[in-house]
Structure formats: C-alpha cells, structure tokens
C-alpha cells in the first residue's frame, strides 16, 4: 500500500485558516489502513479544526466525507454536485488522490492533509516500512525477494557496503541492512552461490529518472 503519515496540525491550520467552508475528504484505501487519512482520522481532524476556529472566534463550516478511493474517477465524481459549496478541500488521501481531486475540480483549492511517504507494509500496528520504489523493472527474482533499491540506503545492486554491521545498516542501528537480509535468504534457499553473480548496471529510465511514467494497456482499454 501507499503509506502516509499525519501532517502536524499547525501546518494544516496554516493552509486552511482563511477559508469559511471546508470539506475534509478521507480515503478508504491505503491511508485508512495506515491510519492517516481514513474516516476515523477525518473525524479527529475535523474536531481539532472546529476547536481551533472556535477558540479563534472564527465561524468556519467543516464537513466530512470519506470516499472509497480518490485515485479513480468514479468515486471522485460523487463530490461533483456539492463541491461548489466549499471554499476549499482538505484531502487526506495520498498525494495521488490529492492531485486527482485537484485535476478534477479545477476551480477549487485542494490541500494535502497527510505526508505521503512510500510504498510499504504494516510490520505491526503503528509501524510501517518501505518495500518498493516502483523502479518499473522489478528485479526481486535476482535478490532473493528483497529489494535493494528501496531497502538499501545506497540502493546498491551489488552490496553490502563496508558499513554493514551486525546485520544493521550504517545509517541507523535500527535499520536492517538489506544486503544482510538478501544473503540470509539466499542461504536459506540454498542459493548463496548466486551472490557472486554481478548484477549489471541498471537501466533507470523506467524509474523516476526517465520522467513521469505511464502504463498504457491496449488489451484492457475500453
């Protein structure tokens, strides 16, 4: 999923403090799972803002809604009939949802309510960590199913570096060294000999380096 984190309330207030009628829009997908932008968080943020405006003696109307997704036309369209009632929208979706909202409702100011962080997993409740950077050319088959691009601090394709210490990365004692994980798993799979295969220079043109990316699938287009 896409993992997001809460934005500090002060930052949110700073963005929306001059509007009179606000719509806070949550998303029922990833940001609900990572407890940053689902229905529950929309409710908590709305209460906090109402409290703030009340203390400031400002009259601001705040409505709440949580859509199934904000990255698909179909769900965003549900706002079509009401959107003009609002001065601004605060979207608690990931950056993708915020942008799709802004594209769709061109004349309405849209603000991000969360910090979108990465694609990752729930390690345990309240702990999420990165697993993929969408390089566009997945090489997990060569690295025992562990991604050196997203999990090695230097994205080394032929690691580990000399800083790997007791299984941890040189940048942080609490961070697993991706290459230690790869080697441990190669060993488990009886494939440690694969370690000596040099992974060739990567074509990064399918990654961010190649510019904004698009997937077009003629076979599924309508």
């Amino acid at each position, binding site marked *: 999923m896409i993992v997001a984190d809460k934005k500090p309330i002060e930052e949110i207030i700073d963005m929306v403090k001059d509007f009179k009628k606000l719509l806070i829009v949550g998303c029922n997908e990833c940001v609900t799972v990572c407890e940053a932008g689902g229905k529950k968080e929309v409710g908590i943020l709305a209460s906090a803002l109402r409290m703030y405006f009340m203390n400031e003696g400002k009259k601001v109307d705040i409505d709440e809604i949580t859509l199934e997704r904000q990255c698909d036309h179909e769900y965003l369209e549900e706002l079509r009939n009401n959107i003009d009632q609002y001065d601004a929208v605060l979207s608690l979706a990931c950056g993708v949802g915020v942008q799709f909202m802004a594209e769709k409702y061109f004349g309405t100011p849209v603000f991000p309510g969360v910090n979108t962080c990465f694609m990752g997993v729930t390690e345990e409740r309240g702990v999420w960590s990165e697993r993929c950077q969408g390089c566009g050319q997945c090489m997990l088959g060569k690295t025992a199913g562990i991604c050196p691009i997203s999990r090695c601090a230097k994205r080394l394709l032929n690691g580990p570096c000399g*800083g790997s210490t007791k299984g941890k990365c040189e940048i942080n004692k609490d961070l697993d060294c991706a290459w230690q994980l790869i080697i441990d798993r190669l060993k488990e799979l009886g494939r440690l000999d694969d370690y000596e295969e040099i992974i060739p220079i990567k074509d990064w043109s399918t990654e961010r380096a190649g510019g904004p990316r698009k997937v077009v699938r003629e076979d599924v287009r309508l």
Partner: protein
Amino acid sequence: MSANNVPSRLKKILDAGHLAVTSECGPPRGSDPKAIKKKAEMIKDHVDAINITDNQTSVTRLCSLAACIHLKLMGVEPTLQMVVRDRNRIALQSDILGAASFDINNILCLSGDHQQFGDCPQGQNVFDLDSMQLIQTVRLMRDEGKFLGGDAINRPPQMFVGAAANPFADPFEIRVPRLAKKIAAGVEFIQTQCIYNLDKFELWMKQARDRGLHEKAYILAGVTPFKSAGMAKYMKNRVPGMDVPDDVVKRMSGVPKEKQADEGINICVESIQRLKEVEGVKGFHIMAIEWEDKVPEIVERSGLYPRPNDL
C-alpha cells in the same frame, strides 16, 4: 598478474614484486591548495602513490580530481578516489576522462559513505552505479576504449583499477566472495579497511588464498595509527564496519596520555611487521588521518624505506 601496460608507478612496483606503500590525504575544506601540497611534500619520498579522498565521510571538500592534479604537477603519483554517491554515469565517465587527460593512472572505486554522516544530510544521493559497476566501467573504458553508451573513446584512460575491501564488515561469510566478485568485475588492486584485528584479517586472507584470489589482485593491507586511546575507542564504537579488539584499546589506555601517540605508532609498526609475513599481502596502505607527518617514521621503522626508484 596483469598483462596490460598501464603506466602506473604503483602497478610497476607491484608487478616487480616489491611491497608497495601507499598513503592518503584528505583535501582541504577550502580552495587553498597549500594544505594538500604540504601533506604530499611530507610523505612523497616514503610512499609510491597517494590516494586523494573524495568528500570522505560526505563532508564537502575540494574535489579529489583537482587535488590529484596538484599532486601530479608536483611529480607525485596520485590515486583518484571516486565514490558513486555524488555523480551519475555521465559525470563519473567524464571525470575519469578528465583525470586521464592529466595522466592520472590509478583509480579507487568506492561506494562512499551515506550523506547523512556529512555536512549535507538533507542532500540527494545518486548511486546510479555501485562500486562494482564503476570497476566494470573503468575497465570497459580502458580495455575496450568504449563509453558505457557504446561509442568509442578517443585516447582511452590508462588506469590501474583499485577498490576497497573490508574484511571486518558483516556478514563475514561473504567478505571473501565479495572480494571474488570485485576481482571478477575487473579490480586489479585492493586497499583494505584499517586492520586492528589481525587474527580475523589472517583468516580472511587465508580464505582468499584458498580461492587463489591473492594471485588475481594485489592486496594492500590498510593500517591507521591511533593518536590516542580516545581515538581507539571512537573507532571501535562509532565507525561502522571497524573492528578494534578490546586488547588494542586496553593497550592504548594502558599508557599515560602523553605516551599514547607513540604507542599508537608502535602498534601500527608491529602490525605491519606481522602483516608482512602473511602470504598474499603485497603492500601497505597507511592512512594516517590528519597525521601525515608520521607516515615517514612508520615506513622507516617498518623496514619499507627506501622506496624503489628505478622503475
């Protein structure tokens, strides 16, 4: 060991079977070249080549290439250290050509410390290639006279290709396979991480010999003298990938403060003496961090002086 005729003095010394001695200097944090020239002046008669570090520990400094050129103009042989942290493949190849245009004939291919250790922890990193792939790149440019993109290079670089090896980093079981991998990538000489745990180094060397790796690349043993017991403790506890055994720290702490520097030099010289006996060690890389003036003494007391000068 190597059939090519790269005009590197370091290579010639190694090819001739001498124990080589290299050292390194960090460029200044400013544009005055005096500091680097002064350091080089201090050690140039006692070493065969001087590595110039490339923004080591990610602290911004005068660039390695420019400092190498200063050495070259003094008649001292430089080894260009190049990390893949800060430059993409265009910049790396371009800097290699720049170095080659000054006939800089040694290169050390490194990953580089993560930028969070330096003065720009908020900066981007590049890591377009890794150190293994940089080795391959230099070899391609030199041996096939080609750019990564496939075009021909007019006057290809003539470089003796080196890399670092850390026998002490984890996981230990892949330390030798990793060396084998660097050799397969095309590395010709290795400078190791500072050796304080000699037993562990000897074990690594033995495993390397078992695979015949000591005959495929020249291995220069890295040593760094401790200036003080505090430095020994710091290196033990704070520097990633460093293995300083307790008894070495104890030995440093066991002498009065004013004698600790001398003790550090003693330990360094004794290590070199012992390492000279290890089969496969073809020389020494003496990293006297901001203590270059001690290099001549270490070289002389270790019986590595005078340096061969008939090559």
